[in-house]
C-alpha cells in the first residue's frame, strides 16, 4: 500500500512539474508580456524598465530556475497587472467557480448515471433510444452553443432568467444547466455501455440462476462491477471542478477562475496563468490519485499482490 501510494505520488509530482514547465515555456515563446502589458505605443525605455523590474531580461533558463525555486517556497509570483499575489487573485475567484461547477457535477451524476442505467436495462427499447438520442445531442453540442441557445430561449425570448452576471442565484441557473447537461450526456453514455458490458457477463447469469430477484441482480451484482469503469469519468469531472468552466464563464460573464484565465492569457499575465495551470494540474492529479485508490476499493483484483491460493482443486 505504502509503495503503491509512493509511486503514485511521485508520478503525480512529475506530472505537475511537466505542466508547470510547459506552461512556462509556451507563455514566454508566444509573445512579449512587457510589450502587451505596457501597450503597443509605450516608450521603449518604459518597456525595458518593466522587463528589468519583472526579471524578464534575464536568460530563460535562469528565469525558470528562479520561478521554480519560488514555487518550492510557496511563492507563486505576483500579477503583472495589479501587483497583487497571483494566488490571492486566483483564490478570490474559486468560490464563484465552485458555485457553478459543484451544482453542475450534482446534475451530471444525478441525471447521467440513472439515465445510463435505465437505458442499459431497457436496451433497444423506446426509453433506451430516447435517452441515447438526448445523450448524443447533449454531448455533441458544444457548451457555448448550448449556453447561447439557453440564453436565447430563457433570457431573451421568455425573459425568465438573466443572461449573464453574478448578482443573484438566478444568474447561476443557466450556466449550471449548460455544464450539467453536457456532462450528464457523457456520463449517461458511459454508464450505459459499462452496464451493458457487465450485464452480458456470465456471473450475472449465475446470479439469476441461483434465484436472485432481478432488482437485486442489478443493484448487488451488476452496479458494483459497472462502477469500476464509470469512476474514471467521474474522476475527470471532479478533477475539472476548478478549471472546467472556462467557456461557460465566458459566455455568461461569470467572474470565476475560468474567466480570470482567459483575461490573464490575453494579457500575458504570466504569474496568474501559471498559478491557475498549477492549480488545475494539482486538482486533476489529486482526482486521479483518488480514482486509483477507489479502483482498489471497488475491484479486489486490482489490490496489490493478491495471494494466489496454493494448489489446485
Amino acid at each position, binding site marked *: 500500500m505504502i509503495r503503491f501510494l509512493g509511486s503514485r505520488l511521485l508520478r503525480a509530482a512529475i506530472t505537475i512539474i511537466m505542466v508547470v514547465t510547459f506552461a512556462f515555456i509556451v507563455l514566454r515563446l508566444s509573445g512579449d508580456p512587457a510589450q502587451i502589458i505596457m501597450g503597443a505605443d509605450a516608450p521603449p525605455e518604459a518597456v525595458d524598465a518593466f522587463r528589468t523590474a519583472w526579471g524578464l531580461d534575464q536568460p530563460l533558463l535562469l528565469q525558470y530556475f528562479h520561478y521554480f525555486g519560488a514555487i518550492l517556497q510557496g511563492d507563486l509570483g505576483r500579477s503583472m497587472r495589479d501587483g497583487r499575489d497571483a494566488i490571492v487573485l486566483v483564490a478570490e475567484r474559486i468560490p464563484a467557480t465552485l458555485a457553478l461547477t459543484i451544482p453542475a457535477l450534482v446534475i451530471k451524476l444525478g441525471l447521467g448515471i440513472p439515465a445510463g442505467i435505465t437505458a442499459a436495462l431497457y436496451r433497444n427499447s423506446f426509453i433506451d433510444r430516447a435517452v441515447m438520442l438526448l445523450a448524443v445531442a447533449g454531448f455533441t453540442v458544444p457548451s457555448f452553443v448550448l449556453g447561447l441557445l439557453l440564453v436565447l430561449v430563457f433570457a431573451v425570448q421568455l425573459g425568465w432568467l438573466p443572461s449573464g452576471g453574478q448578482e443573484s442565484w438566478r444568474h447561476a441557473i443557466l450556466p449550471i444547466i449548460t455544464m450539467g447537461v453536457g456532462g450528464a450526456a457523457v456520463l449517461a453514455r458511459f454508464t450505459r455501455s459499462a452496464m451493458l458490458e457487465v450485464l452480458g457477463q456470465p456471473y450475472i447469469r449465475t446470479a439469476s440462476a441461483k434465484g436472485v430477484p432481478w432488482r437485486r441482480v442489478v443493484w448487488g451484482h451488476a452496479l458494483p462491477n459497472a462502477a469500476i469503469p464509470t469512476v474514471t469519468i467521474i474522476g475527470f469531472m471532479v478533477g475539472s471542478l476548478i478549471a472546467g468552466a472556462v467557456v461557460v464563464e465566458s459566455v455568461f460573464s461569470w467572474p470565476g477562475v475560468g474567466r480570470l484565465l482567459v483575461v490573464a492569457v490575453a494579457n500575458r499575465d504570466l504569474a496568474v496563468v501559471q498559478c491557475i495551470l498549477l492549480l488545475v494540474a494539482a486538482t486533476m492529479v489529486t482526482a486521479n490519485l483518488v480514482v486509483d485508490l477507489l479502483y482498489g476499493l471497488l475491484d479486489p483484483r486490482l489490490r496489490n499482490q493478491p495471494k494466489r491460493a496454493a494448489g489446485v*482443486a
Partner: protein
Amino acid sequence: MTAPLVSLKGLRVAFDEQLALRGIDLDVAPGESVGLVGESGCGKSVTWLAALGLLPGRATVSGSVKLDGQELLHARPNVLDRVRGGRIAMIFQDPASSLNPVHRIGKQIIEALRLHRGMDGPQARAEAKRLLDQVGIPDAARRLDAWPHELSGGQNQRVMIAIALAGRPELLVADEPTTALDVTIQAQILTLLQELRKDTGMALVLISHDLGVVADSCERVCVMYAGRIVEQAPSARLFEAPAHPYTRGLLGALPPLHGPRRKLSAIPGGVPEPWAMPPGCAFAPRCSMHVSACDAAVPEQVGLGRGHRASCIRATLTVTQDQAAYA
C-alpha cells in the same frame, strides 16, 4: 416410470426469428442422471437456459416446461426466482467468469442460503463452510473470505457447485462443467457430481459435447442434433446399439480403448445453418444411409424398446442389423 420431476414438451426457442430449438420433449425423473450430448450449437445449453427463463429478451420461447406439474415457461418472476437455485440449480462452463469478481466466495454462497433457506449471520456462514467442505475445498473456513480470482478454475467450479447445493435443489443442471478445466480436474469434478447425487438424491442433467464424459456419469443419454433430440437410450444400450446414424457417427469418432488401432471416422459435412434447414431429417445431407424418404418429413421418434428411442426412419433396420451382428 415414476412421475417426472421435470417435463419438457415441444420446447422451441427462436433467436431473431431463427429457430435454435425445434421441439424438445424430455422428462427427467427424480434422482435420475441424464446426459445431453451434441456438438456446439445444437441447443443443449439453450434447452435448459430456456427452461429456467435465463435466455436474453430477444429469444422467443414456446412449448411447455413443467416442474412437478407446475408450468415454468413464462411464469411470474417471483415463481421463477424460487425455482432457480431452490429446486433447479445450474452451473456453467467457465467457472472463473461465472462468479462475481467483486464479491467474496462466502458472500456468494450465503446469498443462495439466504434466498432459499432463510439463513443469516453465523448460521449461514457455518452452513457455507460445510458446503465448501462437502465440495472438497481445503481450508474451507478461510476460503470463505477469498475472492474468486484467488482460486483456481477447478476450485471455482467447486464453489459454483457449493452455491448450487446451497438451495438443496431437486435437479442440478451442469452445463459443460468441465470443459474449461484440465483433464485431471475434469475427472475430479465429475466424480464429485456423482457422489453428491448419491448423497443428496438430487437428479442431474449433464450437458456435454463429450460422449465419454456422459457415458461414465449418466444412466440415460440424449443425443441432440440441430435443435432436436435425435436419440435417447440408457447409456449402456446407446453405446451397444446406437440406432441413429448421427450417434453412430459420434461413436465412430471416439478412439477405441481396446482392440487394434483404427482410423477415426469423421462425419462428413457440417451442421446445417438455422436458415437453411432441410425440410426432412436435419442429418440427411450428411447421412450415409440417406434415402429419398428422409427428405419428405421430419422423422418421428421410433420406440426401440427398453427406453430406447430414435428419430430415424431406418432406426429399426440399423438396430436389427446390430443385434444380428452381436448374436
